[in-house]
């Protein structure tokens, strides 16, 4: 499989070279000597522009990553949103407002404590997320809150690392 991929890559590469070569031959060659290169300022401006472009690309991908991330995690027996999720939820809210999309907020708890209490805790967590989305302009009608308590863990296991991944609210777009 790997070899096949290599072959295909090579073939594409070869074709590209051939194509470029053909193109060059049919175009007139410019022999004008270029004595005057870009000035230092021009270079600096180019570099700055390039950096800005890279920064913008990085920012765009950072934002995309936040929009792609759809899970908010909570502390033990906590329903308070960590401030690290504020921006992520603002971005989701902006998109929901812009695109009129609806979301189901699924609240979950870890297995410790009783299942019935955890069902209530899961709802509280989902409602904390709903509240913040509303603060950022999302309409009530766009949000549905469902709690699964401890019944639907993301990760199986009975230790701290599993529990941390199970105390969560999932944003599920409809």
């Amino acid at each position, binding site marked *: 499989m790997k070899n096949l991929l290599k072959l295909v890559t090579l073939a594409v590469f070869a074709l590209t070279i051939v194509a470029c070569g053909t193109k060059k031959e049919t175009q007139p060659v410019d022999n004008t000597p270029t004595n005057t290169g870009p000035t230092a300022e021009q270079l600096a401006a180019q570099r700055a522009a390039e950096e800005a472009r890279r920064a913008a690309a990085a920012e765009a991908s950072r934002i995309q990553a936040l929009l792609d991330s759809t899970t908010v995690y909570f502390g033990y027996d906590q329903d308070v949103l960590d401030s690290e999720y504020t921006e992520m939820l603002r971005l989701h809210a902006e998109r929901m407002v812009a695109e009129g999309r609806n979301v189901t907020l699924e609240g979950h708890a870890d*297995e*410790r*404590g*009783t*299942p*019935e*209490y955890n*069902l*209530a*805790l899961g*709802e*509280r967590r989902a409602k904390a997320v709903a509240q913040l989305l509303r603060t950022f302009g999302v309409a009530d009608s766009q949000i549905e*809150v*469902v*709690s*699964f*308590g401890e*019944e*639907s863990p993301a990760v199986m*296991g*009975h230790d701290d690392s599993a529990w941390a991944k199970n105390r969560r609210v999932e944003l599920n777009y409809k």
Partner: protein
Amino acid sequence: MKKFLLIVLITLVSLTTRAEIEILITEGRDDARPIAIVPFAFESESLVVTPPFDFAKIIADDLARSGKFKPTAIEALPDRPSSVEEVDLIKWRQLSVDAIVYGKVTEKSPGVYQVSYDLLDPFNDKAIFESEVEEGTYPLVAQAQHLMLLKDKVVGLDNYRWNAHIAADEIYEALTGERGAFATQIAYVEVNRHEANPYQLFVSDSDGFGAQRIFSSRRPIMSPAWSPGGQKLAYVSFENGRSEIIVQNLAKAERSTLASYKGFNSAPAWSPDGNKMAMVLSKDGNPEIYIMDLATKKLNRLTRHYSIDTEPSWSPDGKSLVFTSDRGGRPQIYRVFLDSGETKRVTFEGRYNAGAEFLPNGDSIVMVHQSTKGFHLASQDLNNGEISILTKTSLDESLSIAPNGSMIIYSTVNGRQKVLSTISMDGRFGMPIPSTTGEVKAPAWSPFLR
């Protein structure tokens, strides 16, 4: 709707009998009463060489599970009597057991067995026996000078094990004065993640045998609760994407949705008279306890607080309920009296107390209590507030008390597996009931069924 009905039909039709569940004894105790349970003799006119189940072993396992009795190992039995004439009292006195159970199974025709058994006290010289063949019911007739009468009944394949549990109940009551609760059932949820409908609701005998699947779903099932007569189960099902309260008639396999309000619908608890259902609904914004009149479906809201109020459990007299609330900052047990509406906090020790249930006498509750070592079952005396921690396991939840108040079944984690476990009410005898397949949770002990 049609599709939904079809799914319900399919799941109800596919009632299956399941493999038997293995039983492990983990903790012994030294004050359990020694009792000799002799393997029953078997007679058959056909070619059948063994009865379908070991009647004596079922009795012995039941009595052992109560924590109150320690059956003698079969190898240590001095004799194998099967009728009173064969009992040599001297041998049994030397064994120093409190009582002997022996008996005989006779195959009358294929699948029909006559079972007779006696319970006798070897230290009672006046121990004499009378035979009483009864039909339908088999009440215990205790007499002053000896413990129990000879029993003689005809059973079939389908009620063979059940009759062994009834025998264990009779023996338990004769020896302790307390009604036995072996001929009862447990409802529980099993999760088999590799199956199309991973969430499955089962009803089995109290020893984990004879499990019947009564409902299965793609989505979670929670909180099974028995009606006081034992004919119906209420439970929470997520089959429609969110929690709703379902009532299912076990004999007729009929299901109906009892509560499907906005928000979540959870923690159903039948009133002792069976006319009302306490439940937790978040329809008004946050979890509150309601009591529904089952005839009119009218709701009466019991709690008014912005905190979590959940897990209502009725007092045996039906006049009050205990529930879990974090109105004080942490989950603790509160009690509300229905006539006055007065609410009192019950637990003060420990940072987390939840999921309480009354003992049948109404004087104590058992709950999930968080200590520094984890979540254990603990009992609290309602008169003096004294707490006793009952379990050594540390992720305990979903407790349910046997109808005679002698044992508790609960859900815990054993190694990496979620399992059911039982513990005697004094916390001195515990026994996990491991599932052969997936994780098992949310046990609910049935009321007395006979």
